[in-house]
């Protein structure tokens, strides 16, 4: 389901607090996060260092740790926080409407 560039990604309750899930759309993959304050964020799904799904990683506060090399990003801004990641993650706008999580990819 889409409208005005927003794509329905998942239900808000599909993601545990301080966790992440994978969302695939067309030929792209994304990571959708729920913080420990139940705020939602979205980034590209692959780590910028090597092509591994961040959704298999560990969310700690506002950081996501890649499961392969333990590089870290601030998923709220996309900023690279720990080697071996050097390049920032692309982030995307997210909104929670009546328990439905939408992300704007374009």
């Amino acid at each position, binding site marked *: 389901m889409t409208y005005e560039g927003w794509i329905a990604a998942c239900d808000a309750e599909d993601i545990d607090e301080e*966790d992440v899930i994978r969302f695939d759309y067309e030929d792209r993959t994304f990571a959708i996060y729920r913080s420990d304050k139940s705020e939602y964020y979205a980034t590209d799904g692959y780590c910028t260092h090597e092509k591994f799904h961040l959704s298999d990683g*560990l969310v700690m506060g506002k950081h996501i740790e890649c499961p392969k090399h333990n590089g870290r990003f601030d998923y709220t801004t996309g900023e690279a926080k720990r080697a071996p990641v050097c390049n920032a993650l692309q982030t995307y706008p997210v909104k929670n409407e009546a328990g439905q999580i939408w992300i704007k990819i374009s």
Partner: protein
Amino acid sequence: MPTQDIRKRDYSLTGPEGERAQQRGLVAAQWYATPIPRTKMKELMKRKDGPAIRDTIIWFCALAAAGVLAYWSWGSWWAVPAFALYGVLYASPADSRWHECGHGTAFKTAWMNEAVYQIASFMILRPATPWRWSHSRHHTDTIIVGRDPEIVSPRPPVWHVIAMEFFKLYGGPRDVWRMLMHCFGKLDAEEKEYIPASEVRKTCWESRVYVLIFLIVIAACFYYGTIKPAMFIVLPSFFGSFLVLMTGLSQHLGLYEDVLDHRLNTRTTYMNPIVRFLYWNMNYHIEHHMFPMVPYHALPKLHEAIKHDCPEPSPSLSAALKEVFTALVRQRKDPSYTIVKPLPDTAAPYEYGPEAAAAAAD
């Protein structure tokens, strides 16, 4: 199962094997991982400060006690076992703390990981930033010839290198030489393969600090007219590296090269609690490679969670080393010789890699 390549191969990162691995689909590939429910995985990945703080305090207290023994035994034959103990307590935990803090999993608090990483890197004489990137490549392309900079021995084995490593006489001088080059802003060709340009400045400054400490230790030796200062800092990395080599040899040697399943190229070994403390549970090496975000203190639980999907662990370090040296002796005449470990009935089949998958499809 695939046959192993029997040609004499170029293990350098700058030779043709890297390109060959790329063509074979072995570079930065997807590796087999035992399925674990997300809830369980989150529990295993959970970070804590407590275990690593406790272990670090114990380590430094034990090192200080051994140091006092070594200091007071200086000039007598008791100095030999005292310095041997000091050396093992210096080098072996430095190796494992370097490793675990490099992954950033030992402590929950980031600065604690970084502080212990920098101290342990110096103690084990590994330039901190280059080795961080070297180890990252080791995890991306584990035992992929031409890609992995941390393959301990090629096939056939080079015996004099293994013998030299009992006292770190191969890797130690190489790393010290690299540090000296870093002081002048130079990286060698292998390092350029895995260290990004953005990290070169940091690399150089770290090495300058290391070399400054070397110079202070050397100056202290001259000032006091004795080698004693160096026997407590820098040289223990050499004379205490015996256990580092033993545990290191047990990790991958004799097993497969060029596969995409850590159960084929990595060995888990049961070890006694003392060695496990010194080695920070890296004896659970299949587990560590399959799930590097699981901290050392959770590896025994991870082992329990995936052992139904893994080959039987080696029962002891001595058994693992016997297996390794038997394989190395056979590889001297037959470089293709590889240890094949059967899987339990409960395990998923081995995934050898893209070539095996293509062959199976044919």
